[in-house]
């Protein structure tokens, strides 16, 4: 891949505008109409509470305290108490129900993504790594949650508050109102300028942190290597540079933010000063419409006015992050699985296991054809062993059989029916697999064994484990079949994992079996157990084996040597050894020493 192509892949072009993303995110909460209207009402109540408060206090000062009216003051104060109470209820309702809305959105979004991921074809997983998909589900939904929750409601509340304060100000005195908002344009320009600068600075600091963590992860996972080559000093020096770069980038970014807040503070104080100066001037020299109480009220408006303005400027950053995240999430949700059931697909119950590849052409990408006009006939009960170098296409046959990929040309049939005419579920139920990496879930052993047959009884589970030579070691574990496996290495050995995978396949009892032999080494005694387990597993089934062990290959009905886009050699052990080709060379290499 050239450098240019690589860059293009890293930065996929956005096909949606921010507005598209936002609308689609909104569509997730619009079916929560009932909840949203409660939130809306609650928000109005909260805004009323905060906006009316200063007005009432101003009124109390002006109309009652100055003219010594105790009864009037009491009435206003009762009113103020009522206002506060309404605000309180509104605040409470707003938080609770908005949280509910956003949590529901997140739940639905997560569920949708997960359900969609289940439908996607293998090609998609091949193209996007685990890390990429994980990050979409975890980080991106997180970023969306931040926006579509309190941030959204706070911003909405800010807008409400802003409008309420504006109304309150303008109905009381237009001149003073205009003086109060004079600094707004300066604030907007400053915010805009700062956001450009700080975005660049934060991007730099994020990248520095990204590099630091990536290098750190790698360094930490190769400590033993570094020690064994005695190069720790170089590694440490390299880390020190990353670390210093991260520190400096952070300090630079902080410098910009540190300047922004005080500037805003000075500007909003300027507004207060203007209100006090101009208001005071009008109160002294004016026609009496501007009273002391009014000036006092405006002083508190000025303060209330600038809080929402600042909140709104924060919103921009969150929105950018959430929209970028939304875009990635919707990319995923819009990815069509390329392998789906055909309209007239039929169900197959128990296959005989007659598999026929005829003139099959296939490549994972269009440029590179792996199988070119390949044909292979497999009778029920036969065992086929695939041999060849890494990357030659050994696993391709089995990938096609389970319709993890579709062939480009030719035909592939099971019991004479094109696999594409079968439902995916019924087709895959015919096929069981023992994966090369011995993948198991972090669950109990019993649940892992039941993975292919959920309703199996305990005795069926144990019978399968026995056939897979796994029962004995399972019983030696502290919790037996209820032992919880932890991901990665640890509790049980690699060989034992392999035995469990075999037991899992035996319990699922498929007609066709795919065995991708593990390459990692297990000691001879466990290996003998594995061999015996495999023999039990293969009994009475059509089997495809991606083979690494000569012992397995030798007993195959057909050995298929793959290379150069097709089948190089085909036949049983004796035939191939006699033919004296690649296979014969392989056998020679392993026995000569």
């Amino acid at each position: 891949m050239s450098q240019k192509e690589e860059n293009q892949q890293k930065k996929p072009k956005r096909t949606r505008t921010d507005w598209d993303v936002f609308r689609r995110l909104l569509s997730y909460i619009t079916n929560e109409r009932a909840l949203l209207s409660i939130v809306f009402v609650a928000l109005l109540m909260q805004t009323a509470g905060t906006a009316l408060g200063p007005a009432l206090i101003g009124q109390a000062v002006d109309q009652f305290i100055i003219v010594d009216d105790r009864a009037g003051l009491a009435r206003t104060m009762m009113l103020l108490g009522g206002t506060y109470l309404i605000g309180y209820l509104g605040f409470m309702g707003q938080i609770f129900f908005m949280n509910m809305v956003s949590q529901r959105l997140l739940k639905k979004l997560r569920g949708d993504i997960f359900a969609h991921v289940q439908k996607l074809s293998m090609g998609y997983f091949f193209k996007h790594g685990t890390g990429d998909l994980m990050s979409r589900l975890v980080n991106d939904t997180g970023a969306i949650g931040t926006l579509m929750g309190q941030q959204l409601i706070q911003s909405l509340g800010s807008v409400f508050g802003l409008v309420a304060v504006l109304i309150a100000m303008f109905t009381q005195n237009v001149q003073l109102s205009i003086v109060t908002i004079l600094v707004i344009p300066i604030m907007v320009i400053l915010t805009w300028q700062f956001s450009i600068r700080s975005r660049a600075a934060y991007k730099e600091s994020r990248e520095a942190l990204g590099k630091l963590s990536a290098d750190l992860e790698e360094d930490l996972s190769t400590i033993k290597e570094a020690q064994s080559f005695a190069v720790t000093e170089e590694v440490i020096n390299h880390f020190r540079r990353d670390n210093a770069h991260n520190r400096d980038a952070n300090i630079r970014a902080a410098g910009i933010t540190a300047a922004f807040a005080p500037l805003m503070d000075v500007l909003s104080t300027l507004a207060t000063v203007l209100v006090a100066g101009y208001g005071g001037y009008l109160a002294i020299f004016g026609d009496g419409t501007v009273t002391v109480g009014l000036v006092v009220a405006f002083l508190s408006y000025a303060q209330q006015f600038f809080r929402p303005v600042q909140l709104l400027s924060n919103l921009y950053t969150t929105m950018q992050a959430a929209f970028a995240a939304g875009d990635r999430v919707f990319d995923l949700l819009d990815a069509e699985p390329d392998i789906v059931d055909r309209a007239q697909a039929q169900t197959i119950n128990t296959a005989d296991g007659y598999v026929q590849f005829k003139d099959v052409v296939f490549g994972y990408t269009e440029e590179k054809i792996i199988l070119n006009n390949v044909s292979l006939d497999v009778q029920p009960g036969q065992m086929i062993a695939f041999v060849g170098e890494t990357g030659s296409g050994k696993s391709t046959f089995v990938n096609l059989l389970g319709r993890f990929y579709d062939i480009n040309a030719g035909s592939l049939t099971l019991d004479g029916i094109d696999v594409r005419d079968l439902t995916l579920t019924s087709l895959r139920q015919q096929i069981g697999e023992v994966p090369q990496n011995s993948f198991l879930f972090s669950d109990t052993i019993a649940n892992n064994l039941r993975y292919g047959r959920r309703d199996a009884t305990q005795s069926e589970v144990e019978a399968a484990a026995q056939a897979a030579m796994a029962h004995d070691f399972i019983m030696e574990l502290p919790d037996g079949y209820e032992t919880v496996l932890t991901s990665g290495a640890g509790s049980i050995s690699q060989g034992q994992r392999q035995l469990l995978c075999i037991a899992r396949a035996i319990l699922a009892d498929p007609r066709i079996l795919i065995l991708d032999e593990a390459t990692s080494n297990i000691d001879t005694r466990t290996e003998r157990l594995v061999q015996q387990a495999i023999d039990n597993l293969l009994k009475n089934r059509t089997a495809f084996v991606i083979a690494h062990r000569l012992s397995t290959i030798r007993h195959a009905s057909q050995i298929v040597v793959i290379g150069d886009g097709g089948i190089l050699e085909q036949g049983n052990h004796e035939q191939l050894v006699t033919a004296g080709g690649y296979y014969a060379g392989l056998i020679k290499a392993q026995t000569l020493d």
Partner: protein
Amino acid sequence: MAVIKRGFQYLTPYWTFAVGAFISMLLVTATNLYVPQLIQQLIDEGIELENWNGILFATGGLLLMALIRGVFSFTNTYWSEKSSQGIAFDLRNELFIKFETLSFSFHDTHQTGQLMTRTTSDVEAVRNFFAQGLLQLISAIITFIGSIAILLLTDWRLALAVLTTVPVIIAIFFFLFTRMGPLFGKVQKLLGQLNNILQENIAGVRVVKSFTAEPFEAARYQNQNERLYKQNIEVSRYFATGFPTVFLLSNIGTLIVIWYGGNLVISDQLQLGELIAFNSYLSYLLTPIFTLGGLSQQLASATASGNRLFEILDTEIEITNPTNGIKLTHHQPGQVVFENVSFRYQGAEEDVLTNISFTAEPGDTVALIGATGSGKSSIVNLVPRFYDPTAGRITIDGHDVRDYDLDSLRQQVGSCLQEVTLRSGSIRDNIAFGKPDATFEQIVEAAKTAQAHDFIMKQPNGYDTEVGERGSGLSGGQRQRIAIARVMLVHPRIVIFDDSTSALDAETELKLKIALRPFLKKHTSIIIAQRISTVRTVQQILVLDKGRVIARGNHEELLATSPLYYDIVKSQLENDEA
């Protein structure tokens, strides 16, 4: 608290910034406290008395305060960031150096993820405390006490009436923060479990699909998703009742001030401006309480993180470099002798090696064979001092390995491991890992010996092909060959093959064996193997069982004398014979 005290030591190199930030913070707090006084003057001496000069004086004062506050809140933020980033920088370096020098026994019990968390999140938690927490704490306390004092001085009756709400607010906060901590923890745990399901689902997509378990997986995920949702709603119930209540209480404070204070103004016991100022100071009480609530969390997490960090920094390094260690050079013969060596892993109850003795002569190969867990890898790990023996000693050319300079020892003992972790970067960089200054010719030569050259040349950019994270994109066999090339490049005196050809196909393994022959003839080597075919030609084979050497000799001798060896040979013949 001892943790925080120790944390302070990290502040000392940056004390000028820290003190600057502290003074700035004091000035900011002071101006904040002075502002309501100015507003009071504005109202009482300016507007009410219709005194234009009073208004000008007060507004001018307000603007001046804002400017002062602006400058110092900038220096406060900037300097505290500077000092805290410095602390984080030093802490990270110190941790990293510690990780790099801690012995294998430490790394056996600590996962990379854990170490990552220490170096990133934990350092960040400590930094946050020193960047904001500490100063905010002091500022909050000063503001709180200052406001109360001013309130009491302005009018003690009004103050006492208002301050009744404060204990209630504090009590609510206390309740909230003690309740929410565990609830948040639960949310985090549920989220972790949810992500775990997801991670496994994606990693095991092949298994999921081939067992048609998609509906089951979706149900499992949905189930956990629902649990997370419920827990989140539970948390928001506390939020929704707690914070509004606090605001209501503070509003009630305002109500009391205006009502009761209004009456005091009416009966001329209080100035109107004083009343307004009083109200402002009241709002100053709330912020510190909020801050303190948040800080108690921050302090707790900084303390917990600090504890974890210092625990690592205090971990003793078992394998240390001797002072004035002897330099092991390439010109020595390289005879390796094990003398009655016993070894047990830290914290284990049984020895993994008991009384191991053997001699590996220069130019000779010693092969170790035995079941998993019989102690083969433990033996070879003792030579480059990844671990030290519990009893007995290992010598190279007559000197105890513990007397050699550690770096020179490890440079001369090359290990080819079975599980190979490559680093991202080019193949060339990976091969040059142990010898960054190697020439390209040397790299190619090493790759040729390791039978890696051919497949490297087939890569899109040859030696400059980038390998992904942990060598993804290369097969196990290719990674193993790169690992061997890496060791060949360093050209060590003694070389160890720890089952390092397990993923190679038979043909390549044979080619490798032939290519290595000249090297092995001149160097000492210890080889661990599973396959009899690999060790058949070796003169000294040690058969290990449960950490003991139960038989030794060459292939023919062992066939005759060792039932276990015979057993292994027989089983492999059954499996692999052809």
